[in-house]
């Protein structure tokens, strides 16, 4: 509970009070209690199932159906039990539960209020079709707007504080945060809203709640498949790491190097303003750049003593081996070119093809800088690590002849802004073995 600023607590308390105010007129309106109970139980059940199976996101159709069916205070009540009972993984659990419940209550109340004010409940009852869509769409917009405003508020007040919806760090301009939140949540909430509307219409039809429940089944399947997709994607990324760990089996000297190069490549790409997909591809490019070392005989990688020119030539085959391995993985895109060309130099003295300047793919130029930077700043058994500033000076000295100056500048800027905190999970300080002063097969040579 240590990291929650007082203002964030106050903000959550304010929203909670607002939620209670939404529920206050409950005794005054005619509430169909069994409908409220059924919907609340459904909503809570979906939340539990979602948490149990690690689904992503909230299941809104039931809440929105409530907003389309019930008077505002009753609709708001539907959201309460599910949010309060839902399991929360991160601490502080109590605060998060209160926040979630209060936020959903206020959102659903606002949606139901707008929907009711536009006469939506009558159109649902009469299933008056093109016109029933209008209040529903407006209500969905309001719901989305309220949720993102509340989320944006907490982002602006206490960035990084526990109730933050995404694990973000660093300061975010408030307006950008709000706009991003709204646009990101609009599409899924709109689809959930359509399902909610269908549910509400069928609920009020002669077929009753049984038919309405059927609406949930395709939504649940869709949700489940989406979760499967995320699980499979995570497994896939772990497998990419395994490609790298296979290199570690052979060459223990460079443990953790690949992950760090991936991180540095990502920082450079982000600094250059590339879009998110490309940043991700460049991270993979950094992680995989040395995968071709699998093709180099283990004896050579572990050799104690100076390498002969012929052995050097064999080691210099690793970009081509690496490309041979990853070229069948279509989603890696331009990362494959980076694996092949990360030892090219701007002046044409690199390998394997001796490309110059703009002939070298951009991705390869990014990875080359990241590779050299990490090679210099990490401890190798044959020499101590250099400090970051010395490494950057060295990079700047070689910019133009060996490295693309644009990438070097981007790295310098990114480091001055965020600092260099490499993940050290795989970086165990092993027993240093004697290693020749001849540069190894990394980008550190000059």
């Amino acid at each position: 509970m240590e990291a929650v600023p007082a203002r964030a607590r106050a903000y959550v308390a304010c929203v909670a009070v607002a939620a209670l105010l939404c529920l206050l007129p409950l005794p005054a309106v005619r509430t169909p209690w069994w409908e409220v109970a059924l919907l609340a139980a459904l909503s809570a059940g979906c939340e539990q199932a979602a948490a149990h199976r690690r689904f992503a996101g909230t299941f809104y159709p039931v809440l929105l159906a409530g907003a389309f069916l019930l008077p505002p205070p009753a609709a708001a009540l539907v959201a309460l039990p599910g949010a309060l009972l839902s399991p929360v993984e991160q601490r502080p659990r109590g605060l998060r539960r209160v926040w979630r419940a209060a936020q959903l209550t206020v959102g659903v109340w606002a949606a139901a209020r707008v929907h009711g004010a536009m006469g939506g409940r009558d159109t649902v009852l009469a299933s008056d079709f093109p016109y029933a869509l209008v209040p529903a769409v407006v209500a969905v917009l309001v719901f989305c707007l309220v949720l993102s405003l509340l989320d944006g508020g907490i982002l602006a007040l206490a960035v990084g504080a526990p109730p933050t919806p995404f694990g973000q760090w660093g300061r975010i301009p408030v307006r950008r945060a709000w706009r991003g939140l709204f646009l990101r949540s609009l599409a899924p909430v709109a689809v959930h809203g359509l399902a909610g509307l269908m549910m509400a219409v069928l609920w009020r039809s002669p077929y009753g709640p049984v038919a309405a429940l059927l609406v949930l089944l395709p939504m649940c399947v869709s949700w489940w498949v989406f979760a499967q997709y995320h699980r499979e994607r995570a497994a896939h990324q772990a497998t990419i790491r395994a490609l790298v760990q296979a290199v570690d089996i052979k060459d223990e000297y460079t443990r953790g190097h690949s992950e760090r190069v991936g991180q540095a490549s990502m920082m450079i790409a982000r600094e250059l303003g590339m879009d998110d997909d490309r940043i991700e591809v460049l991270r993979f490019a950094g992680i995989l750049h040395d995968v071709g070392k699998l093709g180099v005989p283990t004896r050579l990688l572990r050799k104690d003593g100076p390498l002969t020119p012929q052995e050097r030539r064999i080691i210099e085959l690793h970009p081509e081996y690496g490309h041979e391995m990853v070229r069948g993985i279509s989603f890696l895109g331009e990362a494959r070119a980076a694996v092949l060309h990360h030892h090219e130099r701007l002046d044409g003295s690199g390998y394997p093809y001796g490309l110059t300047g703009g002939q070298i793919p951009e991705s390869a130029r990014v990875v080359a800088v990241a590779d050299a930077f990490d090679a210099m700043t990490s401890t190798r058994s044959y020499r101590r690590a250099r400090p970051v500033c010395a490494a950057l000076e060295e990079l700047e000295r070689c910019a133009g002849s060996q490295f693309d100056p644009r990438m070097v500048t981007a790295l310098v800027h990114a480091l001055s802004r965020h600092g260099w905190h490499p993940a050290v999970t795989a970086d165990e300080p092993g027993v240093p073995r004697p290693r020749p002063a001849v540069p190894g097969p990394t980008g550190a040579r000059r």
Partner: protein
Amino acid sequence: MSARCAPKTSCRVPPILTLVHTSAALLATGSLAFVLWTGLEERGTALTFGVLIAVGELNRRSGPHVREAAPLGAAGALSYALLGESAGAPTHHGAAQVVTVVLAASLVGSVPHVGRGQGPLADQLARRVLTVGFAAVCFQPLYNQGTFAQWGGPAYALLLLALLSLTALCDAVLAAALAHSRTRWPFGPLLRDELRALLGIGSAVVATGAVMALAVAVAGLWALPVFSVPLLLTQLSVRRYAAVRCTYRQTIASLARATEIAGYTPAGHAHRVAALSREVGRDLGLSRPELTVLEYAALMHDIGQLSLVDPVPAGATASLPLAEQRRIALLGGAVVRQTGVDAAVAVVVERQADPCREQPLAARIVRAVNAYEEKARDAGPGGPLTALEELRLGTAGDYAPEVVEALARVLSRDCLTSPATG
């Protein structure tokens, strides 16, 4: 790999296939003739459903790992078969009209796919016509006679659901029978896979079909576009899931090639072992998830060799001393465990050198197929037969007899006598 997954057509058409196609054709022509004779009822409704089905077909996606290729088309067709009212007014279309509209819309929607030369169209059309015909024949005549008139609302909804579930079951049996007759893979596991798929996207199709029929009854045709959106979303999720599965497979295949590039195993070895293992596994009746585990394990079975300082000559682990084989297998299991692949894969890789009585079935298959591949590889024209004979002689201790027999069946059936065809 995928070439082997694809169904193979034999020269002689199996009787089940003829039966299914003939009955579908008879049903279709009969319905068409009837509709031409009597004319279309409620053209607007027919047209709207037709458009929905055609759009669903246009978005069809084919591939070896797709269970329901066109869920929107299927749900639309089923809901038209079970449609009794539109916006409160009863409809009058009969079963013949349902079959005709669905057939016409499916044909229109498949034009681009046929243009691109994709897919065994006849099977899909026959399945669609027969299942929709079944649902419509069960429902429409009884409804039009007013049998369901005194059923209450919720009971009617449950009736539709029950009818659709029955239809889905019949469809699963039909699909398994068609796949069985085309590929000659065992019927039991195929049916099991189809039934398992019913729980996933199949249930979404059934529920959507029922809900669409009910929603159109209440709200009129407006309900169709509104309700197509969630199903389109499901379709999108399924597609992304299939895409990520596909890239995952590519990654595993690349990981498998690491040993080849490192010079530990000959080029294409892992690939051939995986393809042949899959066939043998299918012959032995493994289910779809088990086959995936088997395939991944076969692809990565040599990965432990990466930790050897010097390569085994030609990667032929089958001729190494047993202790060394086990050591390599354990090292491979350790690598696989780090990959985040299903732990079952690691177990198979780890235990591939154990005595066959203690091994899980997948490990037995990998071991026998690997040995066959290594023995048959360089042995010239008579190699495969000699290799198979050696495996048979060795079955007492090293190779499981039932796996070797399945291997022999697969080899004689698919004419994989030369490993170079892999």
